[in-house]
């Protein structure tokens, strides 16, 4: 690039960051179907294919169901296979997502989180990811374009680890991250190549000297055992990710853990959430800290497997906690609230917890909104006041 350049940062959107990681991974097969806001990932990647920057066979499938099916086929055949989607696309893939995880295929998929229809909405929330939270896929959430890039490379290593062999979704917030140009540091192609290593499939279908059968009928005599194995894979993922994160740090200088504890150590009041809003919340925490208010933030990066022990430890000193879900579960508690509350069930010194729903359909959430959450927490005295779910930025009355 230019000679006057003062940094090694690159201007990349979240979508471009995902595509750049895919270019460096150079998977044998990518099968996709376009959907907003995922489309710029595959537009960027298709350009890499057209310009000969990758060796990938790019399959333009006729639907997401077919795209995931093609990726499952390719992965079973014994190669690296990737895809990307959003919202309705993920919903349409759902059936095959369970096949990918059930067959233990280490597929990595970029998911640009978007609201689910109806009503029709193209903007970001995390209901699509939450729909598939129990599908046996690893789920990593990213705060910004940098984390999208890093998580994609890390997810590949994690998924392909012999003790894991589970597919992985790398999440980014629709538009907020996918379409925002930010500072991103990338690794050299050589470094990435070395980090991800050569892929050695466990049971490649095309190895005709060792013929195998995928997708055989598996009834009450063995299905249960195979599902138990998936639980084991997820438990192993917790151990393996720790090592991969450490290795990634030595390669990149960027440190990751299952959750990010932001000024949480001595925090009295805290927020727990996932995705881009974590960044916005950090700025609010800093402001409150300047006013000597002991506020903190728990950013969940790894949602599946759910790192319950780590989260329990991180939050054990917090007095009052707000759990912010960017997905709704009508008639029940939302996903993150459910998980964290379960950790503290029956615990004497558990933080008092208030559930919030925010950002549905891309509703903007700014520092003021988050400031109000901390204010609510600081004010609330009795447990009773903390029970009912609250909605950030929802109109209770029509404006005039």
């Amino acid at each position: 690039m230019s000679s006057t350049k003062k940094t090694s940062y690159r201007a990349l959107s979240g979508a471009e960051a995902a595509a750049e990681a895919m270019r460096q991974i150079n998977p044998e097969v990518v099968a996709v179907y376009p959907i907003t806001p995922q489309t710029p990932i595959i537009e960027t990647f298709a350009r890499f294919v057209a310009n000969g920057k990758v060796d990938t066979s790019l399959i333009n499938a006729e639907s997401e169901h077919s795209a995931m099916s093609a990726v499952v086929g390719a992965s079973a055949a014994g190669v690296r296979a990737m895809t990307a989607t959003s919202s309705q696309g993920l919903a349409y893939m759902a059936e095959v997502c369970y096949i990918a995880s059930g067959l233990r295929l280490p597929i990595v998929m970029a998911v640009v989180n978007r609201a689910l229809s109806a009503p029709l909405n193209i903007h970001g929330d995390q209901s699509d990811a939450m729909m598939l939270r129990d599908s046996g896929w690893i789920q990593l959430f990213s705060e910004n374009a940098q984390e999208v890039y890093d998580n994609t490379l890390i997810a590949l290593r994690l998924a392909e680890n012999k003790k894991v062999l589970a597919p992985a979704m790398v999440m980014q917030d629709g538009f907020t991250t996918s379409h925002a140009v930010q500072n991103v540091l990338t690794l050299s192609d050589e470094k990435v190549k070395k980090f991800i290593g050569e892929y050695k499939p466990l049971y490649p279908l095309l190895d005709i000297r060792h013929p195998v059968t995928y997708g055989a009928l598996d009834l009450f005599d063995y299905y249960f055992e195979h599902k138990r194995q998936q639980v084991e894979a997820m438990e192993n993922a917790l151990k393996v990710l720790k090592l991969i994160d450490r290795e990634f740090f030595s390669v990149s200088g960027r440190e990751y853990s299952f959750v990010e504890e932001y000024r949480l150590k001595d925090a009295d009041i805290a927020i727990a959430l996932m995705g881009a809003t974590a960044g916005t919340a950090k700025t609010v925490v800093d402001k409150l800290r300047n006013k000597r208010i002991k506020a903190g933030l728990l950013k969940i990066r790894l949602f599946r497997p759910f790192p319950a022990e780590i989260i329990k430890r991180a939050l054990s000193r917090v007095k009052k906690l707000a759990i912010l879900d960017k997905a709704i579960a009508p008639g029940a508690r939302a996903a993150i609230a459910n998980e964290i509350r379960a950790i503290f069930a029956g615990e004497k010194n558990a933080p008092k917890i208030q559930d919030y729903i925010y950002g549905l359909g891309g509703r903007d959430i700014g520092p003021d909104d988050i400031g109000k959450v901390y204010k609510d927490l600081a004010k609330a005295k009795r447990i009773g006041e903390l029970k009912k779910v609250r909605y950030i930025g929802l109109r209770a009355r029509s404006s005039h």
Partner: protein
Amino acid sequence: MKLKSWRDIPIGGVIIAAGNAKQFKTGAWRTKKPITDKSKCTNCMRCVIFCPDAAITVKSESDLTDKEKAVFKAKTPVMLDRADYDICKGCGICAEECPVKAIEMVKE
């Protein structure tokens, strides 16, 4: 068959030992058994082709015993040997398709 624990089986329900269909005996499903009248059989092998379970094995001429040679006078190099009763489900397609009605379905 002894059932294995979740720790002792390949992941993903993948079958890694080729040819293990042999271990799965579908013969128990059968209520009627195909019996071939070898004096009528012309070795046309329609039953071999139509059998949905590949339960009818074929022998080459060189493998025939003298006794079998005496029964089957046809010039074809292969012959209908017998239904493999571990696999045959007794569907009766062979009997239906036999052009000389050499196969009869007999109650087990």
